[in-house]
């Protein structure tokens, strides 16, 4: 090989082809998925992603919780995701369209959190989640720095943690979650993909690729690809914040 220009062009082509194939290709296929309108419930799914949850996702991201928790249920029969109660169907791309930074994760040191709000017994009440975060349990480290121990002024705060045993604060003090903890818990309690009738989620074993053409059964066609998802009729989901900056505010 002697020709430098040819080498350069080859390098460019190698990167360009994989970029076009993987990034552009999948972007064209499912980069602008729209919500699915379900005539039965007169609702569009997935539901919106409230601002407080988007703030909580930033906390989740900056603590890098994704280094131990995934948020993607694998298809049924592939692993024991269903048997562990993490979800009743495979997660599909449409579940995440309103999330500014989907945290799929790469490691299951801890359980999957895709349907944490609906599937986990801990999530029955916010108090349980706060306590788990404060104390840590079963291999999860405590995140006590997300809480403050403050002197009780007047009556006990309604947010205060009710702890037992040696974890109780000194008399006259209470442990209350910081705004970051509140946002994180609001986010965790929003994690649920309960709608099971997406056309792409129905295939029992081998799902057809997401982003396939609109449902043809006349149930209500999603807007054309490329268009911003129009708020569907009925329970209009709150649109996701446009940028991470807005979410931070």
């Amino acid at each position, binding site marked *: 090989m*002697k020709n430098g220009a040819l080498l350069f062009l080859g*390098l460019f082509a*190698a990167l360009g082809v994989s970029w076009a194939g993987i990034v552009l290709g999948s972007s064209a296929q499912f980069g602008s998925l729209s919500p699915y309108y379900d005539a039965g419930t007169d609702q569009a799914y997935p539901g919106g992603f409230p601002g407080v949850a988007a703030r909580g996702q930033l906390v989740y991201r900056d603590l890098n919780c994704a280094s131990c928790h995934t948020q993607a249920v*694998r298809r049924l029969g592939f692993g024991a995701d269903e*048997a562990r109660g993490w979800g009743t169907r495979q997660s599909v791309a449409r579940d995440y369209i309103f999330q500014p930074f989907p945290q799929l994760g790469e490691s299951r040191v801890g359980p999957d959190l895709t349907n944490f709000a609906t599937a986990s017994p801990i999530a029955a009440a916010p108090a349980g989640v706060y306590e788990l975060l404060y104390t840590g349990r079963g*291999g999860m480290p405590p995140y006590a720095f997300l809480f403050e121990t403050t002197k009780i002024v007047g009556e006990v705060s309604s947010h205060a943690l009710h702890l037992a045993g040696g974890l109780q604060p000194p008399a006259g003090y209470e442990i209350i979650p910081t705004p970051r903890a509140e946002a994180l818990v609001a986010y965790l309690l929003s994690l649920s993909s309960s709608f099971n009738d997406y056309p792409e989620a129905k295939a029992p074993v081998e799902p057809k690729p997401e982003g396939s053409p609109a449902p043809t059964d006349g149930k209500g066609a999603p807007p054309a690809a490329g268009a911003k998802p129009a708020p569907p009729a009925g329970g209009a989901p709150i649109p996701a914040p446009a940028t991470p900056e807005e979410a931070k505010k």
Partner: protein
Amino acid sequence: MTDLSAHSSPTDSGDVEAYGRGPLLLLAGSSVVWLAVGGFFALIAGIQLHHSAFLAGCPLLTHGRVQALAETCFVYGWMANAGLALALWILARLGGEPLRAANWTVAGACFWNLGIVLALVGIVSGEATAIPLLEMPRAVQPLLLVAYGAVALGGVLAWTGRRREVMYASHWYAVAALFLFPWLLSIAQVTLLWFPVRGTLQAVVAGWYAQGLWTLWMAPMALAVAYYVIPKAAGKILPSYDFASLGFWCLLFVGAWTGGRHLIGGPVPAWISTIAIVASTTLLFHYGIVWLNLRVSGGAPSIPLSFFRYGLCAYVGGGIIDSLTAIRGVAEVTQFTHFDGAQQELAFYGAVSMMLLGGLYYALPRLTGRPWAYGGLVRAHLLLSAGGVSVLVLALGVAGLVQGGDLNNASVPFPEIAAHIRPWLLLASAAQAALLLGNVLLAVNFFKSALCPYYAAAVAAIRQDQRSALEAAAR
């Protein structure tokens, strides 16, 4: 193509290296510091896996953040600095001209390292992106891009201004690494950080970037060094060298398509992981050719060659394991477990870093004109690295298989899984400690070898000046 004569006399003159010595030592010196710092963070992250409360009270060092710190130090601190230093050195030597644009290299190296320091500060203060291998905060990334360009300029000029038209395998791989990294990084920055794409498309782009980082940047850097040093250190020409170009183009064109194997069963179209499985298998062709070419590293008793031997076995073995775990039935067990970590350590540490270390041990005496200060430490480092990586990969691999089996059995609760894999994670932490010790030895040896001669010369010159001044005053 089989002519390797340019690997000998005309390019070996000391003049070629005299100009590049300072900048290259700066890059190499920063790399060994980052290697030790990264090892420190990796040890903390490892301990946190079996003692979850370790440093839990320190908000700066949650497990996720420490992992991001370790990865950033290792990939962008150690690999980038060492890879660039060796790539520039090889391109200048092969070009037969002194390194040009050395000022740019120095400035670029300073800003690159400043960028990494800022990135670490950003990660501990909560600005990390949580994207694997791209955890650095958005704000410092453009700085890194520009700094990389400034460093790489010298290499590109050495390549375009080479005396002889012919190019060698080291040329292809080194030039590929120099050009492809900034393109990859800029695309990832734009599509993930500045104008994030929507939904799980982010995971697809992140997977493409992480795989591209490996197949289009780290592996080419390591192979550039291996293809240059092995024939020289072993004193043999490379067998089946005619096939080397096929191996090169196979890596470049097929490698970046293998990223989707991490998304098997995930919320993305199935073709992305299917194509990754096909590409992973096709890539075995590349590993076969690299093995054919570089197998001459066996036999000769030389420290740099020992590093390359280990690196070659890890590279080819890791490639085979990658293609096996890309198969859906295997991924069902290994996905989301410590087995992924074992594969990453085998690739990043066992393959690339061992080759870069071999290159460093080979290049430094030629850059400074002196042998390594402590021969014993070199040997100790070889033992600690080879032993440490082997134990680390085995421990994490077994932990991953146990964990994967348990995860797929819904009757095993999480605390029980943690108890099952705990002994293996303890072993992995011990291996991390051995690696850290080895890398501290390298840093000590490097600074003693690289800086002390200049320090001694400077002291002697000052003394001489003082003596002449005193003599002048006495007269």
